[in-house]
């Protein structure tokens, strides 16, 4: 329990250890700690950014989906409209066609009737001529009296 040289040795050793610690131990470890802290902070910030970006992306996706829905609805509406138009057009065409066919049929019937009438007229003319021949007992030249026959036929 004497105070002796041990005291000085310990003082010097303490100083040396503290100096070496200050030079070789403290700085590298603090550097590693600080670098890691910076890295972690960076990582957290990146995670935060990613989260925000994800949220933005989700919002964008929702907007895009909404737009797509409206567009789809538009397309459907347009298609409906176009369908109606086509339907109307087809109806109109069909009516026109029907009208045309009716007209054609009408015209044909008219034509047929005219032809029948004409035939009838000619027959009547012949009959009249034959009757006149009979009546006159004399052959009447058909070509010489054609005008008369025609005028007669017209009166029928």
């Amino acid at each position: 329990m004497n105070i002796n040289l041990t005291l000085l040795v310990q003082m010097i050793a303490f100083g040396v250890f503290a100096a070496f610690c200050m030079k070789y131990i403290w700085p590298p470890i603090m550097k590693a700690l600080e670098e890691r802290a910076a890295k972690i902070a960076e990582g957290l910030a990146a995670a935060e950014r990613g989260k925000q970006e994800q949220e933005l992306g989700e919002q964008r996706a929702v907007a895009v989906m909404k737009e797509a829905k409206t567009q789809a609805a538009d397309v459907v509406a347009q298609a409906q409209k176009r369908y109606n138009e086509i339907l109307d057009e087809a109806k109109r065409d069909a009516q026109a066609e029907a009208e045309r066919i009716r007209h054609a049929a009408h015209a044909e019937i008219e034509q047929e009737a005219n032809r029948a009438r004409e035939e009838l007229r000619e027959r009547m003319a012949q009959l009249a001529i034959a009757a006149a021949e009979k009546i006159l007992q004399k052959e009447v030249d058909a070509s010489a009296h054609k005008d008369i026959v025609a005028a007669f036929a017209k009166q029928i």
Partner: protein
Amino acid sequence: MSAETLTAQDYIQHHLTNLTLGLHPEHGLTFANNAGEAAAMGFWALHLDSVLWSLGLGYLAYRFMVGVAQKATAGVPNGAQNFVEWIVDFVNENVRGSFSAKNDLVAPLALTVFVWVFLMNLMDLIPVDLIPYAFAQFMGLFGADTHHVFMRIVPTTDPNITFGMSLTVFLLVLYYSVKVKGVGGFAAELTMQPFGKFGFPANLVLEGINLFSKPLSLSLRLFGNMYAGEMIFILIALMYGHNLLLDLSGGVLQLAWAIFHILIITLQAFIFMVLTIVYLDMAHAHH
């Protein structure tokens, strides 16, 4: 343990004597054979056990931490680096909490104090007779008288060690006081308060006591705690070797005291570190 051949007093005395190497007035350069011879060697003697255990433990810790520091990575740390970082972080927290000025020495100094004092205190948990007995037997092989081979393995129970550390801290306190405040500022701090300039003799006495009590209390607190702790281990060790009941109660007591002592050795290392930081902070503070 050796109670048959030694009285209890001799046993305790043996455990409290350092392995002293010095120049004896009559025997020349030799190891002291007893406490009286050690005292006769005067100031220029060396407690070889204290010095070797202290430097050895310090060196071990230094090697370990330097090894970790050189391979320190900012990525995922391995076990050793994690451990060292945990200690460094703990010390750094304390320095930042107590030390307000800017000084790159304080934190490494505090780390050195904490780790070194803790390791020296830790030697107290090794059974008191184990290493001294083994060492005495070993020296006996070389013809030494085993009853006069001393070995104290807890350096912090040697006031030389604790005073050595507190005096270094004290020198740093003086150095930074003068460096930060100047000679005049430091002198003013010692003489101009608390009673104003006309009360300067009283101021000097009060501030002087205040100043010198720092290294004294710092080292005596550590020394006293460790010395008392070691003494209790020695007293418990005296219970062994008589009968079974004493042996068993001694074992229980030793275990209980060792567990309690884990708290004390950590606490003392922590207190030494914190007070070192606080004293250096006061040295940097302007009034």
